[in-house]
């Protein structure tokens, strides 16, 4: 027994080293922006670069549009299926998880080929980028929403609400959505974290987004990319750590919530 715990500690430590050595090294590297001293010069350079704000703002805007479009597509459909059409669930599961199996590079290629000529020449419209992002975030949004729905008794709640005279509108906005709050927040933060730094679709559809901006910095600068990496990690950690905290407190109420795996 003792020996087994010892081995456990060993593998746990190996994991910690693999995960944190690059982060620590990157952080220290990012402080070398000024010769001879440790400073936050690289971070200052990042923030004063007008392109940083411009591209980050663009990506944030795209990400917010993605969140809205994705939630509008997924949430009512998921609720509808659970209440009215349970036999469509396998199809819905399949279609929302399918993007995991389609690499973004393939999706980008297909979108460009399909929408670069009439009748649907969308390729120069940001709508196509958002549409691609919505597809990419389907699995993330669906997993959050599905686990949220499974943790509540949707059928019981809707019957109770309707027997008290609630219509569809008040059922959705006053009963179902408030109960899905945590799930909706997780979906939102996860989508933001994934879309803001996304590179593949943005580069191939030629948009001045944050991902391509970072890649360009990587070619031209030495310390600023390290600062960007730390900032991005902070962003990812902030949004996903927050979600895990939110869902963890929910988890105690019911076992229906899945892990964050993908």
């Amino acid at each position, binding site marked *: 027994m003792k020996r087994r715990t010892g081995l456990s500690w060993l593998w*746990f430590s190996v994991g910690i080293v693999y995960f944190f050595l690059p982060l620590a090294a990157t952080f220290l590297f990012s402080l070398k922006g000024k010769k001879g001293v440790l400073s936050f010069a690289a971070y200052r350079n990042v923030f004063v670069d007008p392109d940083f704000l411009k591209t980050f703002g663009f990506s944030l805007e795209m990400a917010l549009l993605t969140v809205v479009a994705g939630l509008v*597509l997924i949430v009512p459909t998921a609720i509808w*299926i*659970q209440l*009215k059409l349970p036999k*469509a669930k396998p199809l819905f599961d399949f279609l929302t998880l399918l993007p995991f199996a389609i690499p973004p590079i393939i999706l980008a290629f297909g979108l460009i080929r399909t929408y670069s000529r009439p009748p649907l020449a969308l390729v120069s419209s940001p709508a196509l980028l958002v549409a691609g992002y919505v597809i990419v975030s389907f699995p993330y949004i669906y997993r959050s929403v599905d686990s949220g729905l499974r943790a509540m008794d949707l059928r019981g709640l809707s019957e109770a609400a309707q027997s008290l005279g609630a219509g569809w509108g008040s059922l959705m906005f006053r009963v179902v959505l408030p109960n899905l709050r945590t799930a909706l927040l997780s979906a939102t933060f996860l989508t933001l974290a994934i879309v803001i730094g996304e590179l593949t679709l943005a580069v*191939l559809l030629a948009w001045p987004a944050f991902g391509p901006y970072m890649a360009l910095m990587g070619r031209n600068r030495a310390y600023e990319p390290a600062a960007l*990496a730390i900032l991005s990690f902070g962003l*990812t950690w902030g949004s996903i750590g927050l979600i895990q905290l939110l869902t963890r407190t929910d988890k105690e109420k019911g076992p229906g919530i899945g892990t964050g795996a993908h």
Partner: protein
Amino acid sequence: MTAHAERPKDADNDATASLGGAAPEPRREFPAGAPGPRVGAQRKKKVSWAWLGPILPWAGLVPFLAFAFLFMILPASSIVVGSFQTEAGAFTLDNFAHLFRPSILNSYLVTIKVSATTAVFGGLLGFLIAYAISLGGLPKGLRSFMSTFSGVASNFAGVPLAFAFIATLGRVGFLTVLLRTLFGFELYDTGFNLYSFWGLTLTYTYFQIPLMILIIEPALDGMKKEWREASESLGASSLQYWAKVGIPVLLPSLLAAFILLFGNAFGAYATAYALTGGLINIVPILIGAQIRGNVLHDANLGFALAFGMVIVMTISILAYTALQRLSSRWVK
């Protein structure tokens, strides 16, 4: 636990039951006279529902299905169609002949090698860490920390991850310089190069390990303590337990996880693009160059390349689903 777990099931049953009988109806035991006109109205409604009953609920799915078709199914299938066409649109199989050019074949080999190596290394380390935190007797707090961190780290990919490894192990990276100044050890004299095979492998492994932890944790939780106790009380050694019980039970989950990791690395574009500046010869990078039109001037080659990738991914999904079905016998 059981009360909670059963509730959704009941809800599902109710739903299917009421689906067969069209929309939920008010009970009929009411004396016919009492709410007179309302009953009449309900009856009228019931007739129309019975008509549309089976079709109407599908109407609620139209927006989602239309979107998924337009922006996922249609683009993905356009690649399959395109790989059978000449530039003029006529049917051809020539594109596939290109796949067997030595340079293309080689890029497939490199991609498969990177994906398999990272899936094995990442999978093995991820499994050992997951085992340590779930069954290995470590304090509970470490487990929730590692799980949370894995959720973050498995999504920490792409450009920032590449930057982190350049800052750590690049030519002037922190660790490279540290090794030189402390031990006089020249990492790049050993043949190591962050911008080629081993660098890519090391970098991909960073997101493969946490992904493995997240995938395999539920399977490990499904390993019942009783199995181990039973085999020990029958005199089995630890080795025998693993050979006869542990590994056979876990094998489908392990293989499924391996396939998932393989596919995850096979399709990765952003990390490789940012790490190597698009100079490494792997399939996603070649497809990207093809789309941007600045390397190969053979438009239909892009389709063939992408089609090859679609095939690899399809085989992976089929194998994954089959294995999942096998492993769900044990992991509930």
